[in-house]
């Protein structure tokens, strides 16, 4: 019944002008859906069924895209209530909690989606690394990915200050101090970032503008390029199987009913127009359905967090009353832990080296081995080095988050003193 009504609408004049093809019934129509719609710009007409398997990517890239969209939607709604001036900023948090309809839900969603996004970016990066997906021709997309990682941190960090409570104020103070350890430019960077030497109203305004205009715009731009490149580089990375394709190509005959032609130009052996006997399926419905399903699950996950856990809001920021210990946002606690041992090594050398290494990775490790395979045995050294760095940063972050009490002394989370704070 529903389907019939839908078909009727699609075949009407208005319906055709919107959907062009309608609900596709045949492979031809499925192909036409891909070609004639906007979706073509993001995904090909047909995709490898291997790419659709959940364990290939765990859907991390898409989840990040959805989190970004959730953040934009909730963020724009929050902007209707938020005023970037200390007194009013804090008050708007209270208004959201106590007055605005679903205001707390909105703020919670924004907060948790932001944390999830930082976590997701790291996991996504691990996925890409462990499947060797940064190897040629995808080197530069990895670099864009690293920049997106930095933008995500920047967005999360700038958003952290906006509630203007004790948590925000001191986390940003500590974070900004870490940035000032950079040689020569550190102090200047901090001054430009804060619009002064301490976190104050001008810092709030700058962080706000960065958070709602500059960084999201940069992010959207780079995300578009990132996705477009995935598509142009032939979809997801997968193992090269030249022998198989050649073999099958010899036996392959063009089906007589195949009337569609070249729809795109892509590098590599992946799109393989003409060698069509691959394990591919139509993007509509196989990919699109899975994408929608993942969207639903992502929204559901964020909603669960937002309904049952409130975003923190402490006392109004008080520059005269630092909490002990004052901690940076959790994703910088690994750095703060390092800085606690040595400002120069932890605040300058290690982060710089890590960042340079991340960016340079696809240009250092150019061997085409193990592409598209999880933990390929041909990449033992690379995997070992990456894993050591990853585990070290994770351990440092955990120590910084949970095992550091007043005066940055070692403590255990179940210690009663921690509760008091």
């Amino acid at each position: 019944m529903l389907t019939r009504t839908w078909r009727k609408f699609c075949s009407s004049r208005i319906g055709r002008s919107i959907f062009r093809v309608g609900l596709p019934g045949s492979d031809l129509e499925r192909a036409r859906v891909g070609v004639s719609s906007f979706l073509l710009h993001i995904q090909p007409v047909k995709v490898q069924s291997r790419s659709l398997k959940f364990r290939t990517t765990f859907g991390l890239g898409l989840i990040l895209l959805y989190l970004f969209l959730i953040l934009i939607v909730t963020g724009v709604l929050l902007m209707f209530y938020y005023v970037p001036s200390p007194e009013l900023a804090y008050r708007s948090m209270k208004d959201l909690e106590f007055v605005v309809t679903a205001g707390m839900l909105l703020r919670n969603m924004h907060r948790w989606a932001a944390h999830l996004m930082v976590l997701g970016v790291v996991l996504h990066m691990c996925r890409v690394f462990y499947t060797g997906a940064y190897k040629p021709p995808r080197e530069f997309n990895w670099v864009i990915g690293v920049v997106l990682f930095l933008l995500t941190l920047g967005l999360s960090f700038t958003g952290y200050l906006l509630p203007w409570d004790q948590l925000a104020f001191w986390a940003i103070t500590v974070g900004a101090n870490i940035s000032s350890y950079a040689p020569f430019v550190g102090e200047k960077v901090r001054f430009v970032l804060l619009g002064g030497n301490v976190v104050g109203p001008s810092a709030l305004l700058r962080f706000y503008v960065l958070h709602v205009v500059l960084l999201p715009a940069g992010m959207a731009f780079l995300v578009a390029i990132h996705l477009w490149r995935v598509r142009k580089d032939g979809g997801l990375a997968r193992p090269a199987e030249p022998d198989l394709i050649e073999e099958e190509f010899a036996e392959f005959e063009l089906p007589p009913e195949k009337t569609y032609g070249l729809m795109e130009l892509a590098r590599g052996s992946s799109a393989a127009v003409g060698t069509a006997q691959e394990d591919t399926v139509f993007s509509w419905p196989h990919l699109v359905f899975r994408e929608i399903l993942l969207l639903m699950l992502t929204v559901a996950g964020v909603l669960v967090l937002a309904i049952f856990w409130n975003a923190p809001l402490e006392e109004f920021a008080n520059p005269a009353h630092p909490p002990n210990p004052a901690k940076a946002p959790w994703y910088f606690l690994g750095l703060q832990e390092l800085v606690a041992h040595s400002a120069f090594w932890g605040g300058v050398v290690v982060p710089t080296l890590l960042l340079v290494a991340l960016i340079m990775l696809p240009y250092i490790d150019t061997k085409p081995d193990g592409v598209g395979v999880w933990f390929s045995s041909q990449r033992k050294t690379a995997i070992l080095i990456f894993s050591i760095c990853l585990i070290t940063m994770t351990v440092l972050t955990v120590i910084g988050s949970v095992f550091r009490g007043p005066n940055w002394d070692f403590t255990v989370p179940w210690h009663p003193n921690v509760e008091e704070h």
Partner: protein
Amino acid sequence: MSDTRLQRLYPWFTASSLLVGILVVVGFYRDRFREWKVWQRDYIRQETARATTPQEKDAARRIPVAIKQIVLPEVQRVDRCVTCHVAVDDPSYSGLPQPVSYHPNHDQHPFDKFGCTICHQGQGFATTKQAAHGNVKHWDRPMLPMLQIEASCAKCHHPADLPQAPKLTRGHALFQELGCIGCHKLHGRGGAIGPELDKVGAKHSPQWLTMHFKDPAAVSPGSAMPPVIVEEADIQALTLYMMSLTGEQLTEYHVSMKTIPGPRVGRQLFEEKGCVGCHKVGGKGGDVGPPIDDVATRRDAEWIVAHFRDPQALSPGTVMPKFDLTEHEIRALTEFLLSLTDPGIVGYIKIPTWMTPVERGKSVFGKYGCAGCHGRDGQGGVPNPNAKTAEQIPSLKYAAEGYTDTELRSRILNGQHEITPMDTERPPPPLYMPGWNGKIAAGEMDDLVAYIKSLLPEGDDLDF
């Protein structure tokens, strides 16, 4: 093949759609049924039940359920208390259980100007009981219990000028009497041995303050402060006075209320303006005008106020000048004059020129908080652990014998920062004598020395 793979997704679709749907409903449900709505509906029900005519019933039913708030931008407050306490301004609700109950006292503190949290504290932004009453984490000013509400009065009123707040007034008086400012600075005046007290009420909880008076070192390890030994009620009064010291700045409007009369302000004016130059009080003073301590028996407040405004209009030909007094000052002076029938009050008037040097010295002794360490009347006995002088601050009674005037002066001006310890192994005595050079004026010093010398018990001249 591909169709069956697709079909495997269908249950997932159903489940995830249901999940998102349910979550959205749960999210909004929790939002829709906020506790303040219960009270507003309760209020509407009562209003509807009270309505006698159909029109009234109709109007009652149409009362909107909505957030109500008192916005006070100049004091950074938005008080939403009236969202639940909807009937605070309706006397017909007096005596009914909270929150839908009447709040008396509208005239002195109009609610639309004062809101709620200026006096009651708590979290005005909030619309749930727990958060609004401030019993939540990350809100450091919970609602004041009614027993301690007087602490808020001092935000605008002078604590000594407030008969409606006896505990606060008592606390303030004790603070002066015990010489707390000998060690602590308050409003820019006082010693530097202990911490400043300008915002002490915002920094510490009432429990902490009470504990601190009883045993300072117990809550503030290493504190040099001797325990304050007074009755429990007085400890509470002192605590209340400390709680009132929040350093919060209210606006001109709110603060202007504090200059509205009060005999204490009147007395100050009376002492300053030199009224006794012409008028006799308690048998002392000039003869130009009539004695003034019985004015209450001859005139009423209205007459006195009018007379201050324009003496000629009421007593043609009088020599009393028209003083340049503000309306508030006139009312304060009038209140004071009317209180003069009480002979106790007359005895308190301090016109410096009427006092002997010893009397003035005694007030200097009080003014600088010397009693904090040297005890009331300089009798000593305040503990100073490990001081060679029996671990106490010695009495000043025999200072007149041990020191010449010059020595006494130099000792007060320069202080004694090193106190000889009883046992050099133990930590040095925490209390010491600060130098008062530049703080105590020369004239005051003369009077102070006279006072200290007067402490020597008569006939007790040991004459070594």
